[in-house]
Every structure is written in C-alpha cells, then in structure tokens.
C-alpha cells in the first residue's frame, strides 16, 4: 500500500464541507455510482485511493495506520488514540464541524458544579447505593483520561450507542460526557455543564497517520495536496 489512501466523511455537512475544501484547493471529488455510493475519485493528485467513510472509521484508520490521511473530528481522534497525540497528526484545522466535548450532570444537582464536587458526590453515592455513579458516553478513552487528570475516580463508564443526553432521564446513567454546540439539547434534557467540565474544543481537521506506510507515491500525493492548500507537513519520522 504505497499510493495515498485519503478519506473524507461519507455523509452530511462534514462531507459537503470536506468536498468544498478539497475543491477549493483544486482537487474536486466525484462519487462513483451517484450520491449513495461509497466509492469516489479525486482529480489532480495522481493515483490516490479516495474513500468515503464514517468520521469514526476515518479516525480509527488514521490511528491504526490503514489510512494515510483524512478529514475527521478531533474528538474522535483523541478518543480512539490509545497513546494520545502520538497516534495521529493534525495538519490543519478546517474551521467547520465545531463542537465541545463536555461533562454534564442533572441541573437538579445544585450541589455539583465542579469536577471535585462530582467526585465527592460519587463517593457519597457509592456509600449509599453500593455501586458507583454511572457516566454515559461514546468517548470512553477521552472520558477516562480527563477524569483521571481531574482526580475523579468515583464513577463507572457506560458505553452509549446514541442519544446520550437522555441517559439521566431514563436512569441508565447520571452523568454524561457528550458533544454539544449550543447546549440547547442539554438544557432541554435537564442537564448542565460542569464549570470545569470542558474536555475538548473540537472541530473538523485534516490529519495524517504517522503509522501509515509513507514510502512510494503516497508522500508525493500528500505534498501536492498540502502545497496547494498551503499547509505545512513537517517531518514524517
């Protein structure tokens, strides 16, 4: 695998914006098999394997080295990388797809506004209920790292498949770690963000994989793209 494998999100606004960004740099993407196909071609970069994938698959591919480069969310990269930022390299922040990954608790918890108070509430909860407070999230690693860095250990993670903000209402968890842009969904679900509960200010990024095989034409194609888009690559070793 030495030709550049490049991926952009396969759906929605992230896809449109990624295509716009590539087109503006002079490399239009065309989908094979119409709007619903998952194969695509990109013009002007030589022999490139152009792929349309979910943002999560792109982040995973960059972390494990099966993709050379792609557009995905910073939140996903940080969450899927076991060794943190050694597993991926952000070359360019794209200015769209912005959202915050935050810690939120029920508004009814008037005694909990900080991570330290969440830890205290968690300890009291364990004494009273003989189990730990549950935190629902799609961001398992990101949550674990942030909670550890804020000295919070009194919790259990529950992996959430979707609609994380509903977990406290349904009773499957009390606390959530989720993505929010305006906070309106949180408010509508009776939740509030902890004052020191901002984990990451995320946006869409163009990132490359340090683990991918950069020998052969892959590097040349990347350089053609970054030169046209006015992005610094730096050293790949």
């Amino acid at each position: 695998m030495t030709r550049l494998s490049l991926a952009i999100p396969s759906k929605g606004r992230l896809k449109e914006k990624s295509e716009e960004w590539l087109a503006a740099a002079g490399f239009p993407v065309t989908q094979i098999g119409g709007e619903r196909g998952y194969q695509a071609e990109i013009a002007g970069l030589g022999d490139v394997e152009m792929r349309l994938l979910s943002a999560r698959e792109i982040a995973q591919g960059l972390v494990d080295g099966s993709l050379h480069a792609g557009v995905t969310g910073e939140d996903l990269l940080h969450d899927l990388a076991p060794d943190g930022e050694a597993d991926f390299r952000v070359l360019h922040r794209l200015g769209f797809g912005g959202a915050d990954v935050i810690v939120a608790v029920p508004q009814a918890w008037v005694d909990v506004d900080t991570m330290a108070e969440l830890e205290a509430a968690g300890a009291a909860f364990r004494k009273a209920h003989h189990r730990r407070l549950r935190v629902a999230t799609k961001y398992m690693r990101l949550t674990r790292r942030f909670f550890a860095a804020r000295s919070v250990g009194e919790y259990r993670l529950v992996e959430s498949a979707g609609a994380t903000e509903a977990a406290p209402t349904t009773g499957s968890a009390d606390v959530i770690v989720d993505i929010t842009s305006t906070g309106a969904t949180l408010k509508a679900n009776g939740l509030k963000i902890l004052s020191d509960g901002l984990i990451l200010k995320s946006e869409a990024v163009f990132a490359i994989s340090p683990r991918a095989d950069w020998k052969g034409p892959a590097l040349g194609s990347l350089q053609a793209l970054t030169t046209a888009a006015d992005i610094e690559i730096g050293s790949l070793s």
Partner: protein
Amino acid sequence: MTHVAIVKAARGVFEASGATPVDPSYILPSDIPLELSGEAVRARLCVFTDHRGNEMVMRPDLTLPVAGLEAERLASGTHGPNAYCYAAEAFRLPAAEGDPMEFTQIGFERFGRDADPSEDAEAFALVHEAVRACGVRPVAISTGDLAVFPTYIDALGLPRVTADLLKRAFRQEGGVRALLEAAPLPIEDDMVSTLQAKTAEEAATAFRAALQARGIPLIGTRSVAEIVSGLRARAAVQEAGGIPGTVRDVIGALASVNCTAAEAADQLDAIAVRFSLSRTTSIIDRVARRMELIRELLPDLKAICGFRSGFGRRFTYYDGFLFETLGPNLTDSQPIASGGRYDGLISGLSNGRANATAIGGVVRPDRVLRAKGRGA
C-alpha cells in the same frame, strides 16, 4: 534458573508456610474490579463481552479472586483465620512497551489474623524468603503505610466533610493539590431555606419547591437526601472559609517524608510534634515497631528499605502497610515482588456481609528472570 524452576522455588516457600494452594476462576464479572477500584483501572484490564452481552474481565491479579473465595467462605458462616497460596496466571494490558499481557504471580493471601506489626513483618519476610529462594538479590525496597495520611487528617480535627474530601483526594493523582487550590463555592439564595430546615422532610420539601420554582426536573438516581447532604457539605466548606492553612502545612510536611525505613517513625513523629497532633501516636508506633521486626527478621535488607508517605496511594484496595521490591535490570515500575495489607477488601467484595483483616504478597517470576539477566 528457568521460569519453571523460579515458580517452583517461590511456590515451595509459600506452601511451606501452611497456606492452602488454590487456582480460582480466571474470569470475573468486570463489576468486581471496576466497582472496587473505579474506571481508572479499566485501562489495564483485559475486558471482553460474553454471549449475553455481559462485560467480563480476565483476572488482573490473584488477590481479587482469592479474596472472593474467602468472602464466600466467611459469608457462608465459616470463621477463623485462613491462608491461601497460588502460582497462577494473571492478565493485564501492558502499561509499558515490552510488558507481557499474561504473566504468572506466585503469592499468598492471609485472612483473619491480628492486623498488627508482627503480622505485617512476617508477611514481608515470607515474600523476601521466596525472593531469596529464586536466587535474586533485591536492589531497593519501597515501603509505605496508607493509614498514615488518613490518621493525620483525622488528628487535625476538621469538619468530617473536609476530612473525607482530603482522604479521597489523597488517593488520586494531583488530587490534594487541586482541592487545596479550589475556592469554596457560594450557596444560592433559593437554597437557604433547604439548609435551614429542621428535619430531613422539611429540607426535602423546601428543595423540591426550589427546583420547581426554577423549572428544573428531578432526574438521575441520586436521591433528594443525597443532594441536600451535598449542599450541606458545600455550606460547611464555605463557612470554614475553605481549607485552613495548617492543613496545607501538615500535608506538605507529610508529602516530603521520603527517607530510609529506619528513619520513618522519627520523621512522622517530628511532624506530629511540630503541629501538636496528639492522635497520631498509635500509627507512629506501628510504623516503628514494624520496621524493628523487619530489621530483626531480615537484617541484610535494612540498608535498602525506603519509606515514602505517599507510596502506593493509587493501589486501589490496599489500606495499610505495603511494599514493592526492585531487582537489577528493571525499571521502578517493574517490581519483582510486592505486597500489602487490604483490610477493607473482604467487606467491599461482600457488600459488608463479611469482614476480615487481610494481607498478601506476590513474586513475579518473569521479572525475576529478567533481574537475574541472561545465563543466570
């Protein structure tokens, strides 16, 4: 010596101590380590999902399943001291490059004996007898006592809320510093009536009314009583004006205790004298007596035994004396042997249905082999 020969030598020592050999379940529900130790340990657990979707783990050490056996035995009504030994595999995700995911632990766990310095010293000596039987000489031994910090905090006579906060924070990386730096948060006006209520029912009613006035739904599994008691805790910290300066000084002095094990009791005593903390005598005596006994049992290890007050605070279920023994050719995070006291674990595992003092220790044959170097 080969791995097999090392296992045989160390196991022989523990079996000769009269402990019963066991090989408990390899697989545990993930609730057992996670509820006991919290999510922080998940990063090291070999987790999988069974066919019904239940999350399970491969045993991360032998202490947990062996303590589980003992908790069951006690809960079924059998009493009296008991001891187990094992030479068995445990499974952990590597923390450092080159760490194996599967490794052998040779060890013992003793339950229900007097939790006194002589039992601590005996357990320590037993582990080091096994280390010696493996033909390796320790280069350094770190020791600590996780009962020191909580005892000093209790001796300060702080409000219970604050004392509990500090004790919990001690077990977390950077926790105490964060707590000392945090400013107390104010109580909002509409919560005053809740705090001033005479009875729990009045408080709950006032609280529900305040929530309703704010248009906030009562969701989540924490009860009103729990939230109100959290509010009271915040009010108590606010009233005390945060954490007092002497507390910072005592914690700072404790944190800097890093000396030979022989000097530990004197250094702890100097702190107690300087801050007039009278209720620390028993823990200081305990540290002193334990070290005396260890010196008598193992005079040749005296020179390499160190003591740090913060040592082992993130070893989640340990709560008293603990130690780690380092060999040549390995890093500080790869002890060849370790052990300690965990008097609260049986109660934690059985939800309070059983209770027993507990101490144990293990030798890691894979690391002993590395410590001995090639051709040893």
